């Protein structure tokens, strides 16, 4: 029951993200649009390119969805409302998200098409850029909570949300989260103007539908992670806890999409250079600052 509620929430959130995405792309708000689009994809043909690595081509969309769902499985929406509550929750989120990379590499390699291939390898470069900025800010969060349990992490923010306690970490994590979900301006692997769709360019019909579903769930998952780690999870006055989680998660997703809408795509060389030459030193600084603060003012 609990699991069904969480899954229902995730898919409903993914649907709303799709509505917003369609709104930004077409300029019109149509609540039914993603539903019709999914239905239409189901009805269209779905071909496998000739001489592909068929195993990879077929596995990638499902793996993307599984990775996104597993990462969401350790994120609580309210006290007691979670799929699992692993003792290593904060680490497990990272572990599951690492398979987003694997899925995209497979999707890039599988079809034996130039645009997809370049997209896949680009995402590996992107991971090398953002990965440390996911891991290190989460470490700082765990330092404050003295636990990797996601419920403990939310509980540790009772007095002051982490976005205020460690704003630097929040900024880094937020940017890196957009990188994981390959949302604009970090949509290097699936860029339309550079690779005509990149890793998604050979997916059609129902396979494309699964791929897009995976991507949407991934966006919701990353928003949920941001909320749990930095925005106090379910904490908040008046409203019931689950409502707070819902509001915050949707707000974070919307922010992610809107930011991308108003920015041009980043260059890969810049992404790598900025993340390593600026991001990692800042993340280390963040750990140090939080370290001192935890000792001085717990």
């Amino acid at each position, binding site marked *: 029951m609990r*699991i069904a509620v969480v899954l229902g929430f995730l898919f409903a959130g993914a649907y709303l993200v799709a509505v917003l995405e369609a709104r930004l792309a077409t300029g019109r708000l149509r609540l039914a649009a993603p539903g019709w689009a999914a239905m239409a994809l*189901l*009805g269209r*043909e*779905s*071909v496998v*390119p*000739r001489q592909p690595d068929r195993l990879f081509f077929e596995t990638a*969309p*499902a793996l993307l*969805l*599984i990775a996104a*769902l*597993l990462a969401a*499985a350790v994120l609580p929406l309210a006290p007691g409302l979670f*799929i*699992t*509550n*692993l*003792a290593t929750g904060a*680490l497990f989120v990272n572990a599951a998200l690492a398979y987003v990379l694997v899925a995209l590499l497979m999707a890039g*390699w599988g*079809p*034996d*098409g*130039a*645009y997809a*291939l370049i997209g896949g*390898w680009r995402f*590996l*470069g992107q991971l*090398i*850029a953002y*990965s*440390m900025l996911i*891991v*290190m800010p989460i*470490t700082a969060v*765990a*330092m404050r909570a*003295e*636990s*990797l349990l996601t419920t403990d992490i939310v509980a540790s923010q009772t007095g002051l949300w982490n976005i205020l306690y460690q704003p630097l970490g929040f900024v880094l994590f937020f940017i890196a989260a957009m990188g994981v979900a390959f949302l604009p301006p970090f949509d290097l692997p699936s860029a339309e103007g550079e690779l*005509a769709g990149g890793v998604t*360019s*050979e997916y059609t*019909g*129902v*396979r494309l539908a*699964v791929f897009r579903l995976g991507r949407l769930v991934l966006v919701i998952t990353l928003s949920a992670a941001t909320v749990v780690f930095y925005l106090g999870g379910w904490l908040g006055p008046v409203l019931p806890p689950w409502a707070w989680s819902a509001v915050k998660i949707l707000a974070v997703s919307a922010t992610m999409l809107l930011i991308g809408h108003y920015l041009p795509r980043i260059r*890969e*060389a810049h992404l*790598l*250079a900025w993340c*390593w030459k600026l991001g990692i*030193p800042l993340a280390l600084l963040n*750990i140090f600052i939080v*370290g001192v603060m*935890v*000792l001085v003012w717990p």
Partner: protein
Amino acid sequence: MNNALAQYGVLLGLAVGTVGLVLSLYAAARALGRARRESGKDVPATSGRLARDPVWVRYHARYYGYALLFLAFDMEMAYMYPWAVVYKQEGLVALLDMGVFLAILFLGLLYGWSQGALRRQ
């Protein structure tokens, strides 16, 4: 103890269930008909040209300088998580200890930077 194992079971079940969901979607799509095999349809789309050559060739990834450093630098997280959990309880010792560790790693990063590893090759 069983609690933890049960949780892993739930995660495994979630993964298997997702595979089931995906397969049932594929089955629904299959029920609507198979894709017709037509010439040119299954060639990877390159904006109006039939590019039939295989592209699985030795790929020049220009970020290999970063990749080398990343392989080593990535290891730091294995130590940082257990450290973060006991940080508050251990106090200053932990701060100094990890400070030294991270400073050592950061030296490596600086070395790589100075040698031109941190750029597009």
